C-alpha cells in the first residue's frame, strides 16, 4: 500500500509538467493582449509598452515558459494584475472554496444517500417517484437562478440568513445548499441504482431465506456494498466542486478559487491562471488518491501495490 501511495505521489511530477505546458499554451492561445488589458483602457501607449517589457510579454514563448518555471520553482510567481505572489491570492481563496465544498458535500452526501436509500428501499412506490422527481429537479435547476431565489426568500423576505458574502456560519448555508443541490441529486440517483443492484444479488436473497430481518439486511449487507461506488462518486464530485464552484461563488460573493481563476481569464492574468490550474490539478490528484485509499479500507478485497 505504501509503495502504491509513493508511486502515485511521484506521478505528480510528470503530471504537473504536462499541466504546466498545456496551461501555458492554452493561455497564450486566448485572443487578447494582456499588456493592454492590464494597462486599462485609459493607458498611454508608453504604459502598454512598459508593462509588456516589465513582465517579459515581448519575449519568445519558450523564454516566457522558462521564466515562468524558474519563478515557480523558486516560489516567486507574481500575478500580472496585482504583482503579489500568486500563492497569496490562491491559498486563502482555496481554503474558502475548500470550506464551502466540504460543507456542501457533507450536506449533499447526507441528503443524497438518505433519499437514495429511501428511494431504493421503497422502490417503485410513490416515495420512490417523489424522490427521483426531486432529484431531477435538483439536477436541472440552474445554480444562478437557485442562488438568487434562496437569497430573495431567506435573506430579503424572511431575514433569516445573510444575502451572500462571508463571515459567520450563517453565511455558508445558502451557497452550500445551492452548490450541493445538483450533487445531492446525482448521489441520490446513484445510491438508489446501487441499492437496487445489490438487492438482486444472490447473497441478499440467501439472507432473506435465512429469515434475517429486513432492517439488518439493509444496514449490514446492502448498504455496505452499495456505498462503495458512492465513495468514488462523492470523491469525484468533491473534486468537481472544488474547481467548479465559480458560479456559486460569483452569485454569493464567496471569495473562492474558482472565481479567482475565472476572473484571471477575463483579465488575462497569465501567471495566475497557470499556477491556479496546476494547483487544482494537484488537489484533484490528491483527492483521487484519497478516494482509492478509502475504497481499499471499505472493501477488503481491494489491495493496491500487489502483483
Amino acid at each position, binding site marked *: 500500500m505504501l509503495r502504491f501511495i509513493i508511486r502515485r505521489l511521484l506521478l505528480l511530477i510528470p503530471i504537473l509538467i504536462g499541466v504546466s505546458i498545456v496551461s501555458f499554451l492554452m493561455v497564450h492561445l486566448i485572443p487578447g*493582449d494582456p499588456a493592454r488589458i492590464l494597462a486599462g483602457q*485609459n493607458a498611454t501607449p508608453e504604459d502598454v509598452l*512598459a508593462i509588456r517589457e516589465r513582465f517579459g510579454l515581448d519575449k519568445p514563448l519558450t523564454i516566457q515558459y522558462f521564466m515562468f518555471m524558474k519563478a515557480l520553482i523558486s516560489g516567486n510567481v507574481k500575478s500580472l494584475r496585482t504583482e*503579489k505572489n500568486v500563492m497569496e491570492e490562491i491559498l*486563502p481563496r482555496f481554503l474558502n472554496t475548500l470550506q464551502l465544498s466540504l460543507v456542501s458535500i457533507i450536506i449533499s452526501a447526507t441528503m443524497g444517500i438518505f433519499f437514495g436509500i429511501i428511494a431504493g428501499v421503497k422502490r417503485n412506490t410513490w416515495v420512490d417517484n417523489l424522490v427521483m422527481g426531486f432529484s431531477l429537479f435538483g439536477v436541472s435547476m440552474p445554480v444562478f437562478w437557485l442562488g438568487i431565489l434562496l437569497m430573495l426568500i431567506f435573506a*430579503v423576505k424572511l431575514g433569516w440568513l445573510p*444575502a451572500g458574502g462571508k463571515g459567520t456560519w450563517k453565511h455558508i448555508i445558502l451557497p452550500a445548499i445551492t452548490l450541493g443541490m445538483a450533487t445531492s441529486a446525482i448521489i441520490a440517483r446513484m445510491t438508489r441504482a446501487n441499492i437496487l443492484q445489490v438487492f438482486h444479488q444472490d447473497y441478499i436473497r440467501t439472507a432473506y431465506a435465512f429469515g434475517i430481518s429486513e432492517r439488518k439486511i439493509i444496514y449490514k449487507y446492502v448498504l455496505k456494498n452499495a456505498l462503495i461506488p458512492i465513495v468514488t462518486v462523492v470523491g469525484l464530485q468533491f473534486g468537481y466542486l472544488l474547481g467548479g464552484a465559480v458560479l456559486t461563488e460569483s452569485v454569493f*460573493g464567496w471569495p473562492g478559487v474558482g472565481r479567482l481563476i475565472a476572473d484571471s481569464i477575463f483579465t*488575462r492574468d497569465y501567471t495566475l491562471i497557470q499556477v491556479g490550474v496546476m494547483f487544482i490539478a494537484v488537489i484533484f490528484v490528491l483527492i483521487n488518491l484519497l478516494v482509492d485509499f478509502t475504497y481499499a479500507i471499505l472493501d477488503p478485497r481491494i489491495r493496491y501495490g500487489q502483483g
Partner: protein
Amino acid sequence: MRKRTWSLVILLVSLSFLLIFAGEAPKYGGKVIYTMGTDAKTLLPPHINDSPSGEVARHIFEGLVEYDEKLNIKPLLAEKWEMSNDGLTYTFYLRKGVKFHDGTDFNAQAVKKTFDFIINGKLRRTNIYKKRIKEVEIVDDYTVRFHLKAPFSDFLNYMASTNADILSPKAIEKYGDDYGEFGKYPVGTGPFVFVEWKPGEKIVLKANENYWGGRPYLDEIEFRVTPEDVTRALQIQSGDAHVTTRVPPVMYNALKKDPRVVIERVPETRVIFLGINTIKKPLDDIRVRRALNYAIDKEKICKVVLQGMAFPLKSPISELLPGHYPVGAYPYDPKKAKELLKEAGFDENHKLKLELATPKGRYLMDYQTALAIQGMLKEVGVEIDVRPMEWGEYINYLFAGRENAKYDIYLLGWSDTLASNVIDRLFSSTNVPPLGENIGFYSNPKVDELIEKISRAIDPKKKDEYLAEVQKIIMADAPWIFLHNVQELILYRKGLKGLIWHSSEFLDLRKAWWDK
C-alpha cells in the same frame, strides 16, 4: 410686557429651528459596508489604473489638490497655488500640521520624495508625469515648486488625480522596491486608515482620529467584493450591506417601492459611441458616415433600450466635463440618411453592408443597443452583421493596427475627467493602434493643430475656445456615430446620509454618516 412677549417669541422660534435641524446634524458612529463588483488591484496610488482601487485609495490618500463633485479643482493638502506667467512653474503652499497615518510629517520633502519615486520608477502611471515634469524643487518646508518641460494646461487636473496622491516617505523607504508589497500597505494622510485587506473578500478602513480636517463621522468603512449585481442589490435590501452602485436597471421599479432603501439616478462621464473605421471604403466617405448618424434614433435607444438611463450626446465629450460645447446631436432623419447614401452610390440595388462589432456585458445594454441599431439601419437599406465578442478578444480585434484593421464600426465607451484628454486620445492622428486609442484612424490636420494648442493654452478662456472649435469640427466630420452619455444607479439604505457621488465614478463616503 411687550418686551417680554417678544423675547419669548424669539426664544420659541429659535428652539423650533433647533428642533427641526437637530435631526439633520451629522452624528458620529457606525460602519458602512460598500459592496463593489470587483476587488481593488493595488492601493499604491501611482500604480492605480482601475476604478475600484481608486475609490478605496481616495479614502486613505490625499493629493495637493482634488476634484469636487462637479470636476472643479479645489485645494486639499495645498492651501493655495500659483502658476508662472509662462505656465512652466507651479508653486504650491502646503497645509501645516498634517501627519501621515504612520506619524511622519507631511511637508515639501514628502511631496518631492513622492514625485521622485513616481518619475524614476516603472509604475503604471510613471509616464504621464515623467513626460511633463522636469523637476520638483523644495523652496522651504511648506512650499514646493514644480518645473514643467513645457506649458501644460491640464497640469492641475493631473495633480488632482489619485495617481498624484502623496505617499509617506517612510513607506517609500520601506516598500519602494516592491510595488506588489507597497500596494498592500497604504499609508496616506486621509480621513480613513487602512486596517486589513482580504483579497477577493474585503478591505477595511477605520476612522483617522487625528485627521487634520476633523475626525470623520463613520467609525469604519468596509469595501466588500460581490461580483453579481443582483446579489449586491439584494444585500442592500436585506441590510447585509449599505450602499452599492451598478444596480441593474430592471430592478429600478421594484427597488423604488422598497421603504428600506433609496435608489437614485446619478450622472457619469462615460460616453458610448460607434467608432467608424475611416480608412476603409466606403466609410472614408463623409456622406456615408453622416448618413449613419442621421439613420439612428438616439432618443429612442436611450428611452427604450436603456430605460431612461442615458441621454443623447451633443458632442464627443460628456456634457458633465468642463470644456464641453453643445454642438448638437445629429437629428433622427432617415429620409436624409437615404439621400446621403444615394449620393454615395448606395440604394435598393446596391446595399451597404457593414459589420458592427460589440462587446457583451461590458457597458450597459451594449449588445442590445447594437441589435437596435441593426434594426434602425435596416430601415435605410444598410445591412448590419452584429458581431459580439468577449472583452479581451474585442480589444485584440480593435488594436490590431492599421494593416490588420478588419472592423467597420465598433461599439465602445470612454470615461474621462478631462475634455482635452478625450480629444487627444481618441482623435489625434498620431494616437492610433496598435498602441493608441484612435481606433477609427481619424485624421484632420486642423484637429491635430487644435489639440496642440489646447495642451499649451494656459489661458482658460482660450482653451475653451479651442475646445469648442475642435468639438464642432469632429461632429461635422462624423468619425463616430455619436450615441449617448450613460447614467448610473446607486442604491443605499435609508438613514445613510452625506454620501457624495462624483461623476468620475467615485462614491465618496468620507463625510457620510448614519441618521439613527
